[in-house]
C-alpha cells in the first residue's frame, strides 16, 4: 500500500514537473521571441465575472490573444503596467473588461482598436473617439420589461429606486413602460442609507421593485432589507444578477457575459478589417433569466412548464429542514 501511494505521488510529481517545464518553455517563447501580433485581453481585476466573456471571446475569435490583469501598484500607473505586461505583443486590438481596463488600454495603445465590455456606465468614463466601441453592461430597458412580463403576467406598477445621478435610467424606464402598458413609480436617493425609506414610501403601491445596478442603491445591507421586505410585502423583487436570486430575489435578468464576449469578438473583427467604419456601442444580446421558485411560491406566482422553459435557471424551493 505504501509503495502504491509512493508510486502515485511520484507520478503526480513527475506530472507537475512536466507541466511546469512546459509552462516555462511556453513563457520563454513568449518573452524571448519577437513581438507577436494578437489581441490583448485586459481585465480590470481578477473578478470571476470577467472569465466568461474572456473565454467566449477566445472561442469566437480566431486571433492569438494574451491576457493581462491590472494590479494596484503605487509606483506605476495602469497604462505603464499594461504596456510593460504586453511588451511581447504587437496588439492588433484590445478587448478591455471593465472601465479601468478600457481607460488604461486607451492610454497605453491610443491608436489600437479597442472594444470594451463589462464597463458600468461606460458613457461617463470611456471616450469613443477613434477606433473604440464596445458592448454595454445594461440590457435595453424595454427588453428587460418584456422579460419581466413574461414571468409576471399581472405586472402593472414597477417601483424603481435610483441615485440622483441616474436620470437616464429613469427616462428610459418610463419610455419603455409606456410602450408596454406599465407604470413606473420612481424614488430618488442621495445616499445608500436612504433606500429603506424610499422603499417604504412606495411599497403599498407597487407590484414589483426593480433593482438596477446603481452603486448607491445596491449594497449588502440594502439588498438584505429589500429582499426580505419585498417577499413579506408581496412585492416581486426583480434583480439583475443570479446571486441576488439565490439570496431571495424573485428573478434576475442579467446580460449573458459570455454572449458579450462573442459580440466583442465580432466587433474586434469589424474594427480590424474596416477601421474606418466604427460600429456603435452595442447592447448585450443575450440574457440569463434566473427565477427563485421559493420566492415565486411565496408571492403566489404560478411557475408552469412554459415559464420554467424560459428560465435559464430555476432556483428550487427551499426544501424542508435546515
Amino acid at each position, binding site marked *: 500500500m505504501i509503495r502504491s501511494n509512493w508510486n502515485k505521488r511520484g507520478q503526480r510529481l513527475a506530472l507537475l514537473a512536466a507541466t511546469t517545464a512546459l509552462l516555462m518553455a511556453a513563457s520563454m517563447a513568449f518573452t524571448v521571441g519577437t513581438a507577436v501580433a494578437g489581441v490583448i485581453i485586459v481585465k480590470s481585476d481578477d473578478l470571476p465575472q470577467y472569465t466568461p466573456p474572456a473565454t467566449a471571446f477566445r472561442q469566437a475569435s480566431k486571433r492569438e490573444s494574451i491576457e493581462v490583469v491590472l494590479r494596484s501598484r503605487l509606483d506605476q500607473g495602469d497604462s505603464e503596467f499594461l504596456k510593460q505586461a504586453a511588451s511581447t505583443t504587437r496588439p492588433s486590438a484590445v478587448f478591455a473588461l471593465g472601465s479601468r481596463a478600457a481607460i488604461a488600454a486607451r492610454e497605453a495603445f491610443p491608436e489600437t482598436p479597442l472594444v470594451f465590455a463589462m464597463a458600468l456606465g461606460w458613457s461617463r468614463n470611456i471616450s469613443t473617439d477613434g477606433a473604440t466601441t464596445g458592448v454595454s453592461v445594461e440590457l435595453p430597458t424595454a*427588453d428587460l420589461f418584456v422579460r419581466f*412580463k*413574461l414571468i409576471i403576467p399581472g405586472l402593472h406598477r414597477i417601483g424603481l429606486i435610483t441615485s440622483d445621478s441616474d436620470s437616464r435610467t429613469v427616462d428610459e424606464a418610463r419610455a419603455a413602460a409606456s410602450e408596454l402598458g406599465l407604470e413606473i413609480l420612481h424614488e430618488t436617493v442621495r445616499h445608500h442609507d436612504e433606500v429603506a425609506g424610499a422603499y417604504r414610501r412606495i411599497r403599498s403601491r407597487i407590484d414589483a421593485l426593480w433593482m438596477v445596478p446603481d452603486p448607491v442603491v445596491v449594497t449588502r445591507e440594502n439588498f438584505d432589507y429589500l429582499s426580505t421586505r419585498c417577499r413579506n410585502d408581496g412585492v416581486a423583487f426583480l434583480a439583475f444578477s443570479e446571486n441576488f436570486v439565490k439570496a431571495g430575489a424573485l428573478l434576475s435578468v442579467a446580460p449573458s457575459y459570455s*454572449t458579450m464576449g462573442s459580440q466583442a469578438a*465580432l466587433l474586434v473583427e469589424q474594427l480590424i478589417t474596416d477601421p474606418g467604419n466604427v460600429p456603435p456601442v452595442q447592447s448585450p*444580446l443575450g440574457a440569463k433569466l434566473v427565477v427563485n421558485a421559493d420566492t415565486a411560491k411565496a408571492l403566489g406566482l404560478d411557475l*408552469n412548464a412554459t415559464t*420554467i*422553459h424560459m428560465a435559464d435557471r430555476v432556483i428550487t424551493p427551499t426544501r424542508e429542514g435546515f
Partner: protein
Amino acid sequence: MARASDAELFFFSPDWAPGNLSTLAEAADRALSESGLGLSFQAFARYEDLVGQLSTARPALVLVPGWVAAEHGENLQLRALLRPTRNGRDTYHKVLMTTKGVSSLAGLANATVAAAVHPGSIDYPASASGIRSLVGDGARVLPVPKDIDALLALSFGQVDAALVTPAQFEILARVNPRGTDNLVELGRTPEIPLPRLYATRYIDDDEANRLAAGIAKLSSSSRGRQFINLLGFDEVELLEIINGEDRVMADNTNRKEVER
C-alpha cells in the same frame, strides 16, 4: 435519490438552455422515484459531455434528437421505444422572422441572424442548418442563448433576422403586441423530429419495454406529468413491442418507426 443499481436514462436536447437542467433533474428524481421504475435520470447540456458518457456510463435508455441517434445508432444498437409529442405532433419547425421592410430571403443574403446556437459546442442543432438552408452561407450567425433573445434582438433592431420557434413568437406577441407588430415570418425550416426515447445495447428488450411502459404511464401522476412537460412534451406514446430479432436502427426516425 437514485439507487446504485438503477438503470440510467440520458437526456440531451439542444433546445434546452444549458443551466436549467437542474430543475429538470429534480423533477425527474421526484417522478421516477414515485414510479418505482428503478430508473435514474441524467441530463446533458453539451453534446461533448453526452458523447463522453455514452460509452463509459453505459446508459440503458437515451432520449435524444434524431441526428444524435443517427450518429450513435449503430454503435449503441438503438431501438426506438417512445415517441413524444407536442401539440399532437412529433415534429416541430422554426421560423425565420424579420422586419416588415425585408420582403424576400435574398434581402438577407449578408444579414446578421440571431439564433440559439452554442458556439462552444460542436453540436449544431437544426437551427444552424436551418439558417443556411434559408439564407445561404453569407449570413452571419449571431449566437444567443435562447429563442427569446433572438426575437428581442430582432424587435429592438439589433439584428436583421431571427430563427425561432413559432410558439416563442406567439408568447412574445401576447406580452408585447406593439413590439412584434413590425415582425414578419419570411420562411420556415423543414419539420424537425422531436427527440425520442431509445433503448441501447446495454439493456435487454424485456427490461427496455418494461421501462418504456412505465415512462409512458408517468403522465397519469402530477409529478410525472410535470416531468414530461419540463422535457418539453405534452404526451409520450409507446411505439411497438420490440422482440429480440428486430432492431431499429434509428438513423432516420421519420423513415421508419418500427421494424419487425
